[in-house]
């Protein structure tokens, strides 16, 4: 019983992290058809900004959390402005490769300005404690992570339904030109999408930093790779698909870890990716492929 609850919480919190990151990828992809390889570096930027503001500014974790989220949002919007705007409307390959160039640049900037070794930033470690709930012992971080993700998804849903920008984002996923014909500024809509993706990356960054306690140039790479996988499972560009894919991936990872014999632990990654490959072959467009009536994008 104890074990079961712990493992389900594991799966939920893994899934929550992937869902947060995958949502950020999906919202950008849905309106720009851009596979944002540089999303991991947005997270890493959040990590470094924690290290910097944490030593220079304040030790107050709540202010620092706001700083991390704002830093991620800012860098995502700036990246769109300086790098992705020039390739807006280009084909998938061009966008993908640009993002991938941006990712290399940022990683090496971190290397150049920071250090190849981890930079300590332990301000969020306090989130991770062992809670004893009756007979069950669980990690507080995992509970926060799951709860915050659920809250973020609800907030995003409300934003997409209630605000004009939210509606524009949903509409732009289907027909960006028609959104512009309604007078909405393309640059604002795209910047809005990047800001949201940065916001979600910032939340994920807080939890990643709480677990790692240090920032490193490559720290965003693996989580984002998994989030890509989550997007693919759910159907690239579909927001519900990203959430579903994220949680399915979390469950799959934990299941593989449980089922695989101890000696084969190193292969967990391989098994998960093999599952993904199979899902792709079974359903090339993902489990929930997005409604797409008009293919032509801005």
């Amino acid at each position, binding site marked *: 019983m104890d074990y079961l609850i712990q493992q389900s919480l594991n799966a939920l919190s893994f899934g929550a992290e992937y869902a947060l990151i995958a949502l950020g990828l999906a919202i950008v992809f849905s309106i720009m058809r851009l*596979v944002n390889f540089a999303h991991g570096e947005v997270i890493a930027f959040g990590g470094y900004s924690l290290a910097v503001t944490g030593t220079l500014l304040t030790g107050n974790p709540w202010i620092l959390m706001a700083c991390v989220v704002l830093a991620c949002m800012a860098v995502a919007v700036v990246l769109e402005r300086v*790098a992705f705007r*020039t*390739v807006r409307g*280009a*084909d*998938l*390959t*061009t966008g*993908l*490769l*640009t993002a*991938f*160039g*941006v*990712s*290399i*640049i*940022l*990683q*090496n*900037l*971190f*290397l*150049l300005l920071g250090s*190849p070794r981890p930079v300590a930033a332990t301000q969020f470690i306090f989130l991770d404690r062992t809670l004893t709930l009756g007979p069950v012992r669980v990690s507080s971080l995992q509970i926060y992570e799951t709860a915050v993700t659920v809250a973020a998804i609800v907030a995003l849903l409300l934003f997409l339904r209630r605000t004009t920008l939210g509606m524009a984002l949903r509409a732009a996923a289907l027909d960006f030109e028609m959104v512009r014909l309604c007078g909405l500024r393309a640059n604002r809509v795209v910047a809005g999408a990047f800001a949201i993706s940065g916001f979600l990356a910032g939340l994920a960054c807080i939890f990643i930093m709480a677990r790692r306690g240090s920032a490193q*140039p490559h720290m965003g*790479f693996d989580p984002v*790779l998994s989030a*890509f*996988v989550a997007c*693919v499972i759910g159907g*690239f560009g579909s927001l519900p698909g990203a959430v579903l894919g994220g949680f399915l991936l979390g469950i799959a990872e934990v299941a593989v870890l449980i089922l695989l014999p101890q000696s*084969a632990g*190193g*292969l967990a*990654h*391989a098994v998960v*990716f*093999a599952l*993904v*490959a199979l899902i*792709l*072959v079974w359903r*090339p*467009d993902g489990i929930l492929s997005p409604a797409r009536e008009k293919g032509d994008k801005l």
Partner: protein
Amino acid sequence: MSRPRLNSAQRRGLLGSALLGLVVIAVVGAYYLWGEAWQARILYATFVNLLVVVGLQVFMGNANITSFAHAAFMGIAAYTAAICVTPAAMKAVSLPDAPWGLNAFELSPLASAALAVLITGVLGLLTGLFMARLNGVGMTIFSIAILVIVHSIFLHRTDIFKGNQALFGIPKILDLPQLTLMVVAAIFLARLFRESRTGLMLRAAADDEVGARAMGVDVFRVRLVAWVASTLFFAAAGIAYAFHLGTISARPFYFNFVFLTVAMLILGGLRSVSGAVFGTLLISIGLEAVRWLETGPVLAGVKLPELLGLSGLALGGVIVAVMAFLPNGLMGNREIDDLVLRRRNGG
């Protein structure tokens, strides 16, 4: 007996390949005339990369789909060739725990290479059967899955692959002259593939998949052919790598290498073989210069600071700049013969 007839595009292709071959030979010649001994290593690595990038062009360039799996196939070939060719006595030391008697046999270099090509090709075919059914993003993710899976296996089965440690004791079989021949041959093959019927259909499908299908192009088949053909180039690169260095490890066969080679292809322009060749040469030369800066050299009496990450920064900068200002790379859709012949016609 009728010789296979070449159409005019294919004859042009032979001319272009010959010109590119001359460029490659000129580089080698320059090294033998003026180069220094330490540059041999760099030149060899550049040519191995050239094999990979030309192979990438065969699939990515003609099908216009980004794939990141090449490092995996190269690694498979390198390990197969290395394990087969290393003398059993040496393997008793380097791979003491290898299963299935892997450390109890040895093959001739030729047989080892043939086996490596065969295994890589078969894996290419098996993955290709799935891969060729997917669409753009799906294919890219699938290729990443291949890369991650193969890398995990290299790391996990330390009894066979030694993981991140070196598998040592591989005899040195190839050197620059042989590799140069391989590179020139690869250029000819890639260019002939580009101008072949299959290559033409593949390029048509990349430009307009629906239209190509309507004209009766079997998109699945042509993609599969290109995919398998490109894995054979990667196999050659892996063999050339393993047969020269004496030791191999899993680390180079992962994302960093993938990024480097893809950047080479993008800079030159993925739609042409000439682009692949020039991109590789330019980035290799540029990176050597940047790496020299990176170590903090003394310039005009001033000691520059050590700048770790500069080469990566330059690489990323090149990719972004090329995508923004020259989305089709330096060469675009043009081959070297287009440049030469245009100049002659114009003059």
